[in-house]
Structure formats: C-alpha cells, structure tokens
C-alpha cells in the first residue's frame, strides 16, 4: 500500500516537475526533450526542431501560440500543441 502511494507520489512529482513549452517565458532558452505527437514530431524534424534542439522562446501570445526561434527561423506553435511538448530550461 505504501509502495503504491510512493509510486503515485513519484509519478505526480514527475508530472508536476516536467516543464511544458507553454510555460516557458519570453526570452527563455530551452531544450526540447519530447514531442509526443508522431506527425508533429516528423514535421518538426523537417523544420529543424528535432528533440534535443535548443530554441529561444521569442514571444508568448497571451492565451495563444508560443513563438520559438532558432537560427533566424521563427516557428509558431499552437497553445494546445505547446502544452504537450516537454522542454528543459538551459
């Protein structure tokens, strides 16, 4: 029983501590760690945004898309999509 609670807490903590792209601040530099949607991931690789890519969060449209830049390239990511993308601050 205690084990289950501990596992539960670990899972919850993991979930809470994972930073998603929609929480990034303007100007912050982050590393993309996971893009769960298959289609989006493939499209992102073509854009140059593979998992592991370091991007600058250029703009966060209030309640709207997140705009990231990398090498003069600007990419707008819808809010709902940004919520699924895990990032790591660097």
């Amino acid at each position, binding site marked *: 029983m205690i084990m289950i609670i501990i596992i539960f807490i670990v899972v919850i903590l993991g979930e809470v501590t994972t930073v998603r792209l929609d929480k990034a601040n303007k100007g912050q530099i982050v590393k993309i760690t996971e893009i769960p949607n298959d289609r989006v991931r493939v499209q992102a*690789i073509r854009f140059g945004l593979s998992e592991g890519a370091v991007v600058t969060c250029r703009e966060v449209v209030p309640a709207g898309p997140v705009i990231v830049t990398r090498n003069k390239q*600007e990419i707008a990511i819808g809010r709902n999509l940004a919520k699924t993308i895990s990032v790591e601050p660097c």
Partner: protein
Amino acid sequence: MNDGIESRIPAGGKKIVLAGNPNVGKSVFFNALTGLYADVANYPGTTLDIACGRYNGDVVIDTPGVYGVSSYSEEEEITRDIILVADIVVNIVDMVHLERDLFLTLQIIDMGIPIIMALNMADEAERGGMKINHALLEELLGIPVVPTAAVHHTGIDELKEKIYQARPGLVDSSLVEKISQVSTPCSRGEALLILEGDPVVSQRCGAAPGAEPESIYRSRRERANQIASLVVKEAGENQGFADKLGRWMLLPVTGFPLLLLTLWGIYELVGVFIAQFIVGFTEQIMSGYYEPVIRSLLGGFLGPGSVLTTILAGQYGVLTLTVTYLIGLLLPLVLGIFLVMAILEDSGYLPRIATLVDRSVSALGLNGQAIIPLILGFGCVTMACISTRLLSSERERRIAIFLLAFGVPCSAQLAIIMAVFAGLGPTYLLLYILILFSILVTTGTFLGRYLPGVPAPLLIELPPLRLPQPKNFIKKAWTRSYNFIKEALPLFAGGALFLSILEVTGLLQGLRVLLTPLTVNWLHLPPEIADVFIMGAIRKEFGAATIMNLHMLPIQDFVVMLTLTLTVPCIASTMVILKERGWREGILIWCVIYALAFLIGGVTAHLLEALSKAGVLNASASLLFGLIIFLTGTVLILSMRCRPRKAD
C-alpha cells in the same frame, strides 16, 4: 500518372522540376525560366494548380513549397509525384534558412535524382552579415550550387548555363545498402520513400512501408545541421523594421488593430470597390449592351419568343446569363480576390494572422487561417469560398465553406436586410444578429466536434516579411483567375441551361405550387413568397422587390429575412461550392443548409407567434428571446467543449 502535365512535354523534352521550401521565391525562378508563357494544369483529383512552362524545348514544372516529401498533405503528395518523374530538379534554397532547407535537398539527393541548387536570397543574407562557402557546399553535397538573388535577376543566367550540369549528389552512405535491399520493382526514389514509411508509395509499389522512418529523418536532419554549420561563415543578427512589424502583428494589443486595418482595406478594395463599383459597371455593360445585342441577333434568326431563343438568350439564357455572370460578375471578383490572396501570400502576413487569431477560432474547429475567408464572406460568399483554398486541411475547408454558405450574409444579402429592417425597428435587428451569431458559433462548434479528423494543430513557420513584387503577384492572380473562369464556364452554362428548361417547360411555375406546404403551412407566409425563395436561390436581389410589395406582418418579414440569410446566397456561390467540394459533397452541403434554414425559420416563426399571442412580444420580450437563444448557444458550446475528447 498525370495526363495534364505529361501531355505538355514535347518529344525528347526533359522535365525540369522546381522544388523548394515555402517562401523561397520559386515563382520568380519559374517566371525567369519560362518567360511570359505559362500554363496551369489542374492536378488530377485536387484543387491545386500546377504551373507548367517551356524552356529550350523542355518543360518546366513548378511545385508547391514543402519542407520534405511524403504523404503528410496534398501539397506534399503532388510535389512528391512530380519530383519522382523529374529528369532534373532545380532546388531553390533560401540562403538565410539554409539549415532548414537542406533537409529537402538531402532527401532529393537520397532519391538519386539529378539536382542543381539555386542558393537564393543571397542579397538578403549578405545584408544580414551572412556568408556561405558555396564551393565547400558543392563539395559536401556533390551537386552544382549557384548563388542567386532572383528578384534582382542576379545569378539567373549562370543558373541557366549550368542547369544541364545537374547531377545526382552524394547519398547518405548508410542508406545506399538499405535502398538496394528494397526488392519490389520500383524506382530508386520510390524505394527511398518506401524505406521512409510513405504509405501511399508503399501501396503503389506493393511493398511494406519501412519500419524506421524516424531514424532516417533524424539522421538526415543531423547531416543537414552539420553541413550548414560547416559552410555558414558568420550569421549576423537582423533587427530591421520588418522584424519589428512582424512582432507587432503577433501581439494582440497591436496585432488586432493591424488586422482590422488590413481587413478594412481588403473589404474596401474587394467588397466595395470591386464588388459594387466595378461589378456594377461591368454588369451594366453586359445587361445594357451585350445581352440586347445577343437577343436581337438570335431573335432575328430564330424568331423572338421561340423556345430556343428563351433557352439561349432568355432570362436564364445559356448565352446571356452564363456570359454575364462569368465576365460581368465573377471575373472582376475573382481577379480582385486572387490579387489580395497573392499579395497576402507573398508578404508573409498570412501565417502571422493565423497565429494571432488561432485561439479565438479554435472553438469553431478551425485554426487561425480560417478567419480570412470568414471575413471575406461578408463581402461576397462566392469569392470567400474560393479563398478557402488558403486553409491547410480538407477538413477545415469543409467547415469554412459550410459556415460561409450557411451563416455569413454577403453584401447583397446585407443590403436587402438593411432595407427591410429599416421598417422593422432595432429590436428585430438585434434579435437577428443574436440568432445569426448563435447559429454560426453553434454550427462551427458542432462541425468541429463531429466531423471526422482532428483540428490541425498550429505548427507553422513565420517567414520573414517581404514587400510583394507586383510583377509576381499580378501574374499569379491573372493565371489563377483565367484558370478559374475556364473551369467555371461549363458549370455555369449547365446551370443556365437547367434553369431555362425549367422556365420553358413551365416547371418553374409548378415548383411554386409545390412549395406551398413549406411556405404557407410551415413558415406561415403568403404563397407568393415562394417566388422569393426560388429567385433567391439564383440571386438574393432578385427576390428583394417582392418582399417589399407583399406588405406582410413584421414577424413574417423577420422570418423571411432570417430564412433567406441562412440559405445559400446565390447560384454563383452554389456553383463554386460544387466546384470546390465536388458534386456529391456540394449537393449534400446545399441540401443540409436549405433544410436547416427552413427548419430554423419555421421554429422562429412559431416561437414568435406564440410570444405575440401571449401578448408579451414587445421590445424587451424580444430582447429576452434573443438572449435566451444566445445563451442556449453558449451553453451548448460549453457543454460540448467540456465533454472529454475521444482518444485521437
């Protein structure tokens, strides 16, 4: 595979295919290579127009801009199939975004197709303080590389000289063996796409799609990044006015005013100047000069009033209505809208608008780009339906066209509405607006939720803002308009023939009688109102005079206006819907809209009558009624949004 394009290739001619990412200036190269002559081939089974032209006895084919080829979108599939049969690919690359563009370059190289690279935007890159070692790039890729600045015509001659030196480049060594292991009889390029898991190509060749598409993509991306890092000497920072303007377009505080200003400009240009002034002028010419001439000519030959004269030159005559509509009405509208679309496309503003309004329209099952056709619909639903081509997925085009035909009143409808409502008072107008708004939002939400497929998530690149080149967008708009009119001609002639036959055989009169249960019994209107609906299906203004002369009760006036707004605006928009969505879907959309329009009209009629019988139909009661409908709509939306989504 493609009759439209195959038939244009002269004997012994090569297929030179222009390929590149979006917004790299492909059309400038196309114009530079083919000169003034260009032909547009409609790719079978799609709405996309592919431009073809001649160069030295070879054929040059333009392709839609893509980031890579596979089966992820209509554009990609077409580009893929054209590249697969290419003899030479001219890969146009944006020097500033070399790293991004190299993915497509490497993919085409891996396909084993002879290729030459035009390293475009050299001027822009230099201004940004960027230099590229193109000798090294040539060496690393194994293909000729020509630096160009196409808009200033720099480097074009060198490209023309070297175009036949195009050769297959250096293929990723780890792929060579894998490609040779693909056993089905297919081309080298198809083999690569099978390995990359392309389902369409795999099925076509009868092979199982590769199991590790992502690792191929990933290693290609790494290779592209590595090559870019080796050849790019310095990357300067670019913070000009365009950069700042681009930023302002994205932020709500500045973005919405800028958007409103743009939309107002478009509305003034297309909705007022072209749709009213120019079209008024051209229609006058057609109905004042062209039609009488045709009538008197035909009357002289066939005798005035004969059946054939009515069919050919009557009110719905094949020679009169078709030509008047196409040249007098549609051509100016289409030219105007294609001009605006081309300018918006070339400037790089569209993706920014989409980003700005993405959140607001996501409730309608659409992503941000759909706002443009919806706004244009208030000017003319017909042209707005054409502009849904801007939208990225089939699903979104479907929703947008349905909303346009159903709930967006066009300028012609608005004019009648204003005239009738002037006599009804502001309460009815408010009620009308509230009802229409609730219907629009509810329908959009409903379609967004229940149409198969998921809303395309917004993931778009924001290209640098650029000043559109007049030569480019005028040519683009003209080619598209010409092609549109050419395709619409048989459709309009057929429609006119159908209406004429209805009139000649007296079926139009019979239709009036047939409609009585609907008009008199269900909508509680006088029988003559059938004329309004029959004529309204052709063009809304045709029925307007009848409404004014009938002297109905305010409630009846209101019900007629509401029902008329909800039906498809005119025969032109009906035909465009049929053309854009195909016969089966077009007819379905048309029928559903008419059924819903009469259903909602009838329910409103009964409700309003019940309210007035109870003696509560004064100003505030109507307002309440309106608010109730409005709230119902909102609640419906909220409940649907809160329902858990099905697993995607």
